[in-house]
């Protein structure tokens, strides 16, 4: 599994400029939300633990990067392997289904965690994000557990790509939708009444709440980590089973070498 992660790092590094641009893409997002926040000033909405709208959105942006990488990263990697033709060579190797799935998801996920930390530090250094109360253990725990929990979804999307080839588009849509209804860029309390219950049960909701608690209150993130751990414990084995079946289906139909 480590070999696959390491290989993906070397492939990503071979595209030097996009690799650096990838790192700075989120900074642009931060700047946009920084000026939106300054334009509209204080809001009456409940911002969970965040002291102002920019702080609220900055955490949303950072976490969305981890969630997107964890949930759509594997789908994108499998699609890339299909297009370059290396998927067949990879599954012919003595790797278990779990090693293939988690190995392919590994690098996008780890890189996203680095990016999320970087964005929080940039926002704190240049845009006034207050991290004086931050519990860094809580911060790291929520990021890590949220990524692992959402990886289950990523493995499911990976299975979808094995079956229908272009499933990564749906993966992106679902992740963005989940982020929107569970409080990535605006509080759940401003959602229409009928959407609020949906937002409340999304695993992403625990991730956003937990991270904001860890950063702005320095406490209260434990329950969210527990909920995310529970979700990961259920979803990851199920997702790996589905991925295994999708791989079997691709072998049966002879579609591993197709794109």
């Amino acid at each position: 599994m480590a070999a696959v992660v390491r290989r993906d790092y070397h492939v990503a590094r071979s595209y030097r400029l996009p690799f650096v641009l990838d790192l700075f893409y989120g900074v642009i997002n931060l700047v946009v939300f920084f000026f939106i926040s300054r334009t509209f000033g204080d809001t009456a909405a409940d911002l969970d633990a965040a002291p102002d709208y920019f702080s609220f959105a900055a955490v949303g942006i950072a976490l969305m990067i981890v969630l997107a990488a964890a949930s759509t990263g594997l789908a994108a990697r499998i699609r890339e392997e299909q297009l370059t033709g290396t998927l067949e060579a990879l599954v012919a190797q003595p790797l278990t289904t779990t090693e293939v799935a988690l190995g392919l998801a590994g690098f996008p996920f780890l890189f996203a965690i680095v990016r999320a930390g970087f964005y929080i530090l940039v926002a704190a250094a240049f845009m006034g994000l207050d991290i004086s109360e931050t519990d860094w253990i809580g911060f790291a725990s929520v990021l890590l557990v949220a990524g692992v929990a959402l990886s289950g979804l990523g493995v499911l999307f990976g299975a979808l790509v094995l079956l229908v080839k272009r499933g990564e588009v749906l993966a992106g849509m679902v992740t963005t939708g989940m982020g929107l209804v569970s409080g990535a860029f605006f509080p759940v309390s401003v959602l229409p009444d009928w959407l609020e219950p949906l937002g409340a049960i999304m695993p992403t909701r625990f991730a956003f709440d937990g991270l904001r608690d860890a950063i702005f209150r320095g406490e209260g993130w434990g329950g969210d980590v527990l909920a995310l751990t529970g979700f990961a414990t259920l979803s990851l084995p199920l997702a790996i089973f589905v991925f295994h079946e999708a791989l079997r289906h691709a072998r049966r139909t002879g579609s591993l070498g197709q794109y």
Partner: protein
Amino acid sequence: MSAVTTNGAVLSIRGLERRFGEHEVIRKLDLSLGPGERVALWGPNGSGKTTVLRCIAGTIAPSGGEIRVGPHPAGELEARRLVGASLSQERSFYLRLSGHANLLFFARVRFGDEREAARHVAAVEEEFELGEFAPQRVDRCSSGMIQQLGLGRALLGDPALLLLDEPTKSLDAAARKRLWSALERRPGTAVLMATHLEEDLARCGERVQLPV
């Protein structure tokens, strides 16, 4: 880990069938290879040679029949450990990485241990004289160079069964000679080769013809 079945075969195929929709590509193929045997699968384009190799490598499931690599059903983890395959070389490498980095990746996947992986890669690079182009990125290599990388990858760790799909198609005379020498140095390795070239056929002890 045993590389042979109870009857001494490294590869045992019984009644193999493979259909793609209504199209029947392989019909009732029986084949057995013992250690050191070298068999050529031959037939015209579209006769199913590559499909047979893919079924053995475990990337395509048979529609019927049974394949065993050593005592293990084809495609299972233990069976894949016994197989070294060189199939559709042009589309099986990470083009942005060097040949060396590709070989090292596949060796790490196969052996886990970093030192052992590096040792096996160094051995095949020396054997196939890849020193000159292994440091190049694969997208800058010619078809012949990529084919040699594919053969080197298949031989990593001296697998019990080698599956070679048209292994000499893009090779020059010197590279062909290196391939045959590499196989001669492995008298215990079973080789199944898909080919329609006379030189390849002459190097194999037995031929199995696939009908169209």
